[in-house]
């Protein structure tokens, strides 16, 4: 492996990055509209298109190839939706039928013309991103690869269409029924999205290959979806992820693969970029904010800890109500047996409460502090108000309300608690005279700063 040269590797990365930019707009809409396999179908269907174009024109002129591919892309898009409608079959099945049949036809046609021209089916599949810089055009005194111009043009076109129809496309993507009532012409917008996707596939298959098109259109958009809830955010995110994929993928193909695999040759850049995009999606699934696995695990763990702490406080408050005291070790045992909390978690919850000044251990007796008693009172108040509510409003039997209240007490805030009190017919100045179904007083929350 030689050092990267700007004239070759720079252009390859630029082509990959431009491909990502071109694909981001239609890709985001395809992912949101859940019609992702269309990209796969169109990119396979271009094969018969270019074969027929060659048979008709007798040349490999890029314009003819493009026209053939565009016609094939249009045919597979319209043909499969027409087939799904008239044969009343699943749209996925219709898509699969149309594009594989066209691909088979394309293979046969290409074999027929094989000795007259070198049309390689595998070139359509993998593309020739490594060779794309060689096919260049002189523009303003600089040799610019044709692929850069084509992909740049498609990017601008997609951006233009997206800006013009932004409102309509957004409404259509998320709520076709609303789009219809607002007069946004959902059918037309759907056709615009599909047309954009098909045109991008057709324009890009030659330089980056049909499989990379599928990867570039769908994977960055699905990854960006994890990072953003806004359509514009998804599009910009897909662009950034796609560019990163092009950079890292080409680096892996030319620098990493030859070093680790015996033989010492470069791997396919298109393939490596597609695989890298897949790895970036996996990374997004793990680390994305809010939707990522790590964040979800941390949230779940914090919730588990909070519930354990609240169970400990509630338990101590109830013991205190009965004028009983326990040693810290006993408290832990009661939590493990009563609230089915694992031993280490009970130990950790108690340590946290001591650190936060909710709990103090004096002469081997675990006792709530003022703040701890306030927390305990609000928790037990929630619990007993829920018991009253469940019995009064939902007519649940007296001996069945406790377990449900045990769960609901942890998700009840001050506002909901006072609403429960009103619904249960308990006045604000009741001062703890009302009893719950088991005859225990509903405690007041002492006035301190900060409650449950």
């Amino acid at each position, binding site marked *: 492996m030689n050092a990267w040269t700007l004239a070759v590797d720079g252009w390859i990365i630029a082509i990959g990055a431009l491909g990502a930019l071109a694909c981001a707009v239609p890709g985001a809409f*395809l*992912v949101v509209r*859940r*019609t*992702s*396999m269309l990209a*796969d179908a169109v990119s396979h269907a271009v094969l018969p298109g270019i074969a027929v174009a060659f048979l008709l024109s007798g040349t490999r002129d890029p314009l003819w190839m493009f026209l053939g591919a565009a016609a094939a892309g249009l045919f597979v898009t319209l043909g499969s939706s027409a087939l799904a409608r*008239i*044969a*009343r*079959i699943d749209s*996925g*099945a219709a898509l*699969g*039928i149309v594009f*594989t*049949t066209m*691909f*088979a*036809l394309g*293979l*046969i046609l290409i*074999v*027929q013309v094989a000795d007259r021209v070198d049309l390689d*089916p595998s070139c359509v*599949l*993998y593309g020739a991103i490594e060779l794309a810089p060689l096919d260049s055009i002189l523009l303003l005194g600089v040799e610019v690869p044709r692929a850069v111009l084509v992909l740049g043009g498609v990017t601008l076109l997609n951006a233009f269409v997206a800006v013009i129809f932004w409102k309509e496309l957004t409404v259509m993507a998320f709520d076709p029924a609303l789009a219809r009532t607002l007069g946004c012409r959902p059918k037309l917008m759907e056709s615009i999205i599909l047309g954009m996707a098909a045109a991008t596939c057709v324009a890009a298959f030659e330089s980056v290959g049909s*499989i*990379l098109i*599928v*990867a570039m259109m*769908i*994977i960055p958009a*699905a*990854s960006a*979806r*994890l990072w953003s809830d806004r359509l514009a955010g998804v599009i910009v995110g897909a662009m950034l992820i796609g560019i990163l994929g092009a950079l890292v993928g080409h680096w892996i*193909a030319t620098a990493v*693969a*030859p070093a680790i*695999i*015996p*033989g010492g*040759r*470069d*791997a*396919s850049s*298109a*393939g*490596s*970029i*597609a*695989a890298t*995009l*897949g790895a970036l*999606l*996996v990374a*997004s*699934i793990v680390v994305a904010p809010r939707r990522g*696995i790590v964040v979800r695990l941390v949230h779940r763990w914090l919730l588990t800890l909070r519930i354990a702490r609240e169970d400990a406080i509630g338990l101590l408050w109830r013991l205190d109500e009965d004028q009983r005291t326990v040693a810290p070790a006993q408290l832990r045992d009661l939590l493990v047996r009563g609230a089915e909390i694992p031993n280490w978690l009970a130990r950790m919850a108690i340590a946290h409460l001591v650190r936060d000044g909710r709990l103090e251990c004096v002469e081997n007796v675990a006792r709530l502090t003022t703040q701890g008693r306030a927390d305990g009172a609000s928790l037990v108040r929630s619990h007993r108000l829920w018991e009253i509510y469940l019995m009064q409003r939902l007519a649940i039997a007296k001996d069945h309300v406790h377990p449900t209240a045990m769960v609901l007490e942890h998700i009840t805030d001050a506002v909901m608690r006072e609403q429960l009190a009103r619904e249960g017919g308990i006045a604000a100045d009741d001062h703890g005279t009302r009893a719950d179904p088991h005859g225990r007083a509903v405690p007041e929350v002492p006035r301190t700063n900060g409650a449950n």
Partner: protein
Amino acid sequence: MNWFDYNTQVVAAATALLGAAAGLAGCLLLLRRRALMGDALGHATLPGIAAAYLVSVAVGGTGKEPWVLLAGAAAGAIAGVLGVVLVRRGARVSDETAMAIVLGAFFGLGTALLTVIQASPGGHQAGLSSFILGHAASMVASDLRAASIVALVCVALVVLLTKELRLLCFDESFARVIGRPVRWLDATVLIIVTAVVIAGLQAVGLILILSLLILPATAARLCTDRFTVMLPLAAAFGAISGVGGTLVSSFAPRLPTGPCIVLVAATLFVLALLFAPKRGLFAQAAMGRAGGYRP
């Protein structure tokens, strides 16, 4: 090559069995609304094949043992299925998007490995890229044996589990409620499909296997509304496509077998679309005059 030729007979028998098995598996995919799963699975076999070659060469083998490559293909397909499930859950995208993601990323990895292999000494003769487009004409008796074993296992599984699979296809939640092991049945469907994809790699290649899965099944679906009729019908369509495609390609010297099989299957589908009772276009037009057909 002519069709009295022993080699043509071997290929025709193998593709007929493969077509029958693919027809059965396709019915299950189609009714589960996962028709394109066959495509994701097919593409996902490529990195498996390439990795199996690399491992085989690394441990001193030739990398050409068919069972090694097919085991790699199976591993790739299973990884692909798991990938679809995990991406769907992890990234919260639709089934179809998850399939497109797995297809793109796995096939990309496969081509990257393939280019490295083809540049390595001896790699170009390994013939790995023939798995992409298939090479039915060079199938031999041992391939026939492998294809027939796979086909028979698929047929046996579908016949034994007909009742359960029908429940799974038409009312999954009811199947769950009455205590059928829905997850295992779902896994069985995917295992059957994986087996068919791997058996079909040599004959039609990993791209066109999708059409062998869905064309006969969709044609059969157009002809009947009964599951127990649809299954044998799809198997028959698949077998006819296999034999027909092989014979057609044996008459002309430059017709590749795999695409011919697909085009015969597509012809059967078009015939079914036109002439099927009730759902066919002619029948619908006739009934349209008599008040219309409501499926």
